[in-house]
């Protein structure tokens, strides 16, 4: 057959192979989103609370990580940690690297969100007899998270996109597998890249819809 239709790239094997890559991408993303949301919140609160020495220490580490390229962190976890005796399978190495980096980004958003809450909210609650923790849980965090939804979601969207950097350590995620597929035939390049583009778009558009839903529910 001479007619090279755009769908020729999508043989059953290729589609299955690409979907497997999507599974890896989604897996890394979902686990990293959850881990970095939890860790980022804790780090952000620690920085906000200004605990002597400890907050400064955590803040400094966080600043260093935040200013490194993600790819470097991925290389460090996958290539350097084994030299120190810590061996992680490639999937988990990516999860650890992504979570570390995204936690430090989210921590900054959480800290900023907390700073934006009027001091009167803390004073009102403390004067009312609430403990520090009750004040955070019932009054401050709900208000802060509501304000933080848009920046947090855009950070999580970058996280999903940045999983593609793991092809640097040959993690078999979606973008990497796309490359393998169009390496078979150069006419596959455009259709495969378009397909991958659509999938990333749908993933992230889904995320932003979830964000809108949360925003409306909390408003």
């Amino acid at each position, binding site marked *: 057959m001479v007619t090279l239709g755009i769908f020729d790239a999508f043989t059953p094997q290729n589609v299955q192979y690409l979907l497997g890559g999507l599974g890896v991408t989604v897996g890394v993303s979902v686990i990293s989103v959850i881990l970095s949301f939890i860790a980022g919140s804790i780090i952000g609160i620690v920085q906000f609370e200004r605990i002597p020495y400890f907050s400064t220490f955590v803040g400094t580490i966080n600043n260093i990580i935040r200013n490194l390229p993600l790819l470097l962190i991925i290389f460090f976890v996958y290539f350097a940690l084994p030299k120190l005796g810590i061996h992680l399978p490639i999937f988990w190495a990516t999860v650890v690297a992504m979570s570390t980096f995204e936690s430090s980004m989210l921590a900054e958003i959480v800290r900023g969100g907390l700073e934006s809450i*009027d001091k009167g*909210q803390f004073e009102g609650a*403390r*004067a*009312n*007899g*609430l403990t520090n923790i009750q004040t955070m849980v019932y009054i401050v965090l*709900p*208000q802060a998270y509501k304000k933080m939804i848009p920046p947090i979601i855009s950070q999580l969207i970058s996280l999903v996109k940045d999983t593609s950097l793991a092809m640097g350590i040959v993690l078999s995620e979606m973008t990497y597998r796309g490359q393998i597929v169009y390496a078979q035939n150069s006419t596959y390049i455009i259709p495969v890249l378009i397909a991958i583009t659509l999938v990333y778009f749908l993933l992230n558009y889904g995320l932003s819809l979830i964000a809108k839903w949360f925003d409306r529910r909390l408003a």
Partner: protein
Amino acid sequence: MSMIEFNNVEKYYGKFHALKNINLKIDKGETVVLIGPSGSGKSTLIRTINGLEEIQEGNLLVNGFDLHDPKTDINRIRKNVGMVFQHFNLYNNKSTLENVMLAPRLVLKRSEEENKATAMALLDKVGLADKAANMPSELSGGQKQRAAIARSLAMKPKALLFDEPTSALDPEMVGDVLDVMRDIAKDSSMTMLVVTHEMSFAKAVADRVIFMADGEILEDSTTEEFFNNPKEPRAQQFLSQVDHK
């Protein structure tokens, strides 16, 4: 026993000496008004009583507990001492009713049924029963302040601190808030300390007036004495500048 007792209290913000050798006793059930020019330390003084500001020297006994003693549990004091703020500080993420019910539920573990009944009765008392479901952003300034007063009263405190409760209100809202405060002052078991610029309120309600300037208490006298025969020149000057007739 006095409800609130300052003994040689000193407070600094860095090098700035905010409270200078404060000695003051307020008895249970007393209504005391604290007045003075802005920057005189009135708000700082009232905020030390529930530990929103720390003191550096002296001791400060509230309901028998020393606030300057690190062993004192500050939350135990705050349970018994309510505070009403200039800017209300209602919980923005809670309805009016929830604002009133939250602390009794979390701190006093009051049963949900009793908590709701008490809260509704208080909202009724301050004229906000119909606003129970509204969010603070839907209330006017005067309504917010009355809700904040109800929130403080729900803890059944022994003392209430008012930090310029009407200063942020539009003039037509002031009266309703003062009426509620007058009502509370009638309760002979409630100790009230009020920082205010409302001289007519001070005259009508206060047992005593404390006059402060530059971080010091310059005059501590009965209301009548203070308004008719102020001793300190600073107090005389202050009274001549504010309209208190």
